[in-house]
Every structure is written in C-alpha cells, then in structure tokens.
C-alpha cells in the first residue's frame, strides 16, 4: 500500500474533481478494495460489479474524507466493505433473534491462544489472541468474510442462539481488552 499521506493528497485532489488523481487512486487502491469485496461476496463477477459502484461512491464522497479521523486506506476499505455487506444483507432473509435474552454466564473457558498470526502487531490482533481460537476466528469471519450469525453457526456446528451468546460474550471481552 502506498503511504497514507500520499493517498490523502490524492483523495483531496479527487474531491476537487481531478480525474487524473482519481485514476491514480484507482490504480493504487483497486487491488486492495477488490480483495476486500471478493472475500465478502465470494463471486468474482459480483465483486467486479460492486467495485465499480464503490469507485463511483468514492468519487462522490471524496469531499467527505477527513485525514484526521482515519487513514485513507481504512476509509476506502470501509466504503468497499459496507457496500459489499449491504449487498449480502439485501439477499439474506431477516433473522429472528429467538434468544433476545443475552445470557452472560460463561461456559468452559479454554484460553488456547492463537499463535497463527505472529506477523500482526495491531492492538486488535493482540486482543483476539487472548480469545479462544474459535471465537477469534468467528470475529474475523464476520468482519473479513461478511459471515452472518447463521453462517457462523453453520461453520462451527452450533445452534444460532448459542453462536450469538458465544460471540457477544467474546465481543465484551474484546472490548475490555481494547479499552
């Protein structure tokens, strides 16, 4: 990825309607954003359609980007990810939250730590490693692969309500670690 400050300048020029800057932005960011949407949508054709819509949005929203809030690539990735998730959500049937009750009691803690991603240094990575491997994986599957609770329940072979309770509890732990 190009240096973030460099992307900041390019986005600023895009906001002023500079088409050559937009081309430059596309060249520098499209593979990353395509990676983001392909991982969520799984289908190459769908992902290509989505990517075009995403760059139309980026052109239109470039003026809203504020470099002090987040890095340029995070801002771009968020637009891509939200667009892909909107597509996935639109296809999904509405879920019924049968277990509106949020059960907080803990089940067998088995703090087997994930040592797989040793290259990562981010805070979230450190905190995810403190969760059980399965649960950290569930967070990643939701964020990076656009898994729904139902998808996660299927993947881990548990009822959806169990999945919810599981993940919500993990999210609270994660929050405490991140804070």
């Amino acid at each position, binding site marked *: 990825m190009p240096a973030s400050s460099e992307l900041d300048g390019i986005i600023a020029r895009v906001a002023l*309607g500079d088409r050559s800057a937009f081309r430059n932005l596309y060249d520098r960011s499209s593979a990353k954003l395509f990676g983001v949407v392909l991982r969520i949508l799984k289908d190459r054709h769908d992902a290509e359609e989505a990517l075009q819509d995403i760059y139309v949005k980026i052109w239109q929203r470039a003026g809203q980007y504020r470099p002090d809030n*987040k890095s340029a690539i*995070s801002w771009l*990735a968020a637009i891509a990810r939200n667009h892909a998730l909107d597509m996935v959500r639109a296809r999904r049937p*509405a879920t019924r*939250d049968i277990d509106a*009750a949020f059960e907080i009691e803990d089940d067998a803690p088995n703090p087997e730590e994930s040592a797989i991603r040793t290259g990562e240094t*981010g805070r979230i990575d450190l905190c995810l490693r403190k969760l059980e491997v399965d649960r950290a994986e569930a967070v990643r599957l939701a964020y990076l692969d656009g898994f729904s609770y139902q998808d996660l329940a299927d993947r881990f072979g548990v009822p959806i309500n169990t999945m919810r309770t599981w993940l919500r509890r993990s*999210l609270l732990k994660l929050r405490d670690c*991140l804070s």
Partner: protein
Amino acid sequence: MGAGPSVPDEVLAAEFALGLLDAAAHQLAEQRIISDAAFKSKVEFWQSHLAELDAEVEPVTPRPLYAGIEARLFAPKSASLLERLWNDLRVWRGVAAGALAVAVLVVGFAALVPGLQTGRTGETYVASLAADQSEAKFLALYDAAAGEVRLTGVSGESVAGKDYELWIIPEGKNPISLGVVPIAGTATIALANNLKSYANPSSVLAVTLEPSGGAPGGIPTGPVVAAGSLAAV
C-alpha cells in the same frame, strides 16, 4: 435481528461494526448513530480497531474496470444526468465558495443589472455561474421583494439549434426548469410562488445547453455549462 433490550450497547455497536445485524436492525442502528452521540462513539471505537484487520486482506487484481467506472461517472450517456449535474456542481461549489468572488461579483453586478436598487426590503441573493471547460458564464441575482431572478450572460456564444436553459436545484431535489435564457443580455424570470422558498443558499442555479426551445419533458438533457450556488448579499 431484534437485538433485545438486554443486549448492551457495546455489543450492539460491535455487531453493527462487524456487519452482523440484519437489514432492518442495521438501518435502525444507522439512525441511532445520527441521533445518539454515545452510541456513535461506541461504533467508532469498534470501527477503528477492526480496521486494523483490513491489513489481513490480500490484494487481488480485478480485471480492468476503470474504463467502465469512468464511463459511468463522466460519459454523457452512461451516468444519469442528475448524477453528472451533481458532480459538476460539487466541483464548482468548492471552487466558487470564496466570499471574495462573491464580493467582486456584487460590485460589478449593480452596474450590470438594471433595476437593482439597494435598500429595498427582502433578501437578495447572487450567484456566479460557471463550469470547467465551458466558456459560458452567467451572473444571477434573486430579488426576494420582487420574487424575480435576473440573469445576465457574461460570456459564451450562442449555439445554432440549441438554447440555454436555467434550472434551480434545491438541495436533495431534482432540477426545476426556470426556462430558456439568452446567453447575451439580461433575462428577468419571475419565480412561481411554489419555487420562491427554494431561492436560498442551499440551492444551486445551473444552466444547461438544450435542444432549441428547451429540454423536452422538463428534465435536463444537455451538458451543464454553468452552475453556482446562491449566496446572500
């Protein structure tokens, strides 16, 4: 997902940021972000931490798509006219925002526009209308007391078989035609009563080049040759 009342906001914010909420709940959460600053900051907490996971996504080169994107944004037929109009206006708005430009225009304007008197009651707004890659430039003045827009062509040529047409574009609304206008000289356009409330700084005036007699169907079809937002004098 009707996340029950017993789901803490921290968890709801995380579920929103992860994309786990279904369409209806997601939409509800989006509305809450707008109205509830505490919830918004919880969501942002998660979004900023989760964004670190973006680094785990491997880049994948898509097939060449740029031409299609460019066509959708910039080619005359492929993007909807409204979309292009907004893009053009957005660019122009940024450029034209300077108060200096407005001040210079107003000084020059009184001399150009007959019938403009200072000291009359009612708001007065001016707009300078221009666009990239277009020679056509106009000055517009809205005199609320008279309920009239006075438009003066400053530069640009008439085009055989075409007419310039003036539009007012209220924020978030479709362009509304104010009729065909001359490129040279001044036109006075009385605003219909239902349009007067749109004559304010949130609206944009734009001129498009249309078939002779104006855009058929009251929807702009030609290129935006000049545009600018209204500013109070």
